[in-house]
């Protein structure tokens, strides 16, 4: 099995693992983490496809590889924004729950924080 196929299958599994975490982990920070696992899986899948495009003495198709660099940097900026939102929510309410039927959160630092 070529490295591209092996890591392509590995990436498919990573996307599944991340998706599971995104659904079942109730903590928003863990959801951000799971989303990054999905993201890295997508990147590796894309990288495996780029590797298959090796030609003309270049080890991988440089166009998807350049897009990957762009993608990794944009993923970081999105993560930073999500974390900043989460920390602000925590500072405002003292809790970070996403549950729609959560107890009144307008008083900071009450029971469940």
């Amino acid at each position, binding site marked *: 099995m070529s490295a591209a*196929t*092996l*890591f*392509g*299958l*590995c*990436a*498919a*599994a*990573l*996307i*599944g*693992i*991340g*998706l*599971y*975490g995104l*659904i*079942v*982990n*109730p*903590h928003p*920070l863990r959801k951000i*983490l799971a989303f*990054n*696992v999905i993201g*890295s899986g997508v990147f*590796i899948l894309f*990288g*495996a496809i*780029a590797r298959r*495009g090796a030609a*003309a*003495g*270049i*080890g*991988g*198709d*440089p*166009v998807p590889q*350049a*897009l*990957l*660099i*762009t993608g990794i*940097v*944009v*993923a*970081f*900026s999105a*993560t930073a*924004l999500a*974390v900043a*939102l989460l*920390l*602000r929510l*925590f500072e405002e309410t003292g809790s970070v*729950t996403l*549950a729609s039927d959560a107890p009144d959160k307008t008083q900071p630092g009450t029971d469940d*924080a």
Partner: protein
Amino acid sequence: MIDALNIGLAGLILGLALWSIVAREAFAAVAGFMAYGLLLTLVWVQLHGIDVALTEAAIGGGLTGALLIGAATRLRSTEAAARAERPGTAVRWLAAGVSVAVTAALAVGVLALPVPAPTLAPDVAAQIAVTGVGNPITAVLLAFRAMDTLLEAIVLLFALIGVWSLAPDRFWGGRPGLRQHADPNGILAYVARVLPPIGVIAGIYIFWVGADHPGGKFQGATIMASMWLLVMMAGLADAPPISRTWLRTLLVAGPLVFIAIGLVGVVTADAFLAYPAGIAKPLILVIEFALMPTLTLILGLMLVGAPKRGPLP
């Protein structure tokens, strides 16, 4: 032999990904995620994407890990409440079923990819000479797909503005993050004095060789930003107030220079972001030099977060 290494690497990565999902403590999960990011770097080397490997090591593993570790420490008190919200067995099984189905569909797709694989590598190899740069990735990033890179720089700027805008009104214009106090004679302050000169040279080197070899402005800027963060964490320097004119000028300078050169291309080369024949390399260098400080500041400040202190000292 290489096959065995690759299979072992894939196994380790899957194990660490699983750990970062199921670990009880967020801190432990993020620690696993950082190790995972570093191992991904090896995957990129195996996939012949050295430039991507450098980016992954610097940003995917390094900066993202540092960001999440900081957040996990701050949010530790909220974890017990979140655990009580864990969905029931039925939802978990359903989620597992959906995830397995997605993985299976993707795996079928991976095994059914077309042969021969479509590729733009020959086109890049045929056209790279007109750009004057030797690294095909840099040629794609700053010539063939320069629009992507321009939009990416703008996305980064907008993300930083988004992070800043989360500051409470009374802190607007103030310094981001909290003032760090570290022992001035401690090991952190020592490292923060000794490492930055080396790190800055390494960052500039990686930036400079990016024209012809793996490397480039994103990887270089990340190293520079991490050196700046180290100095700030050791309490040797403070983050600048976000109302400073020099700071805001540098933050928009990179994208503005990029757009200006793109507009010049409309007149001289008949298309936005097209470079006139013969001077493509100097123009690419001007863009990279303008973007470097912008990217360093944005990456560093994004990690420090929203302003937390008033505009007056």
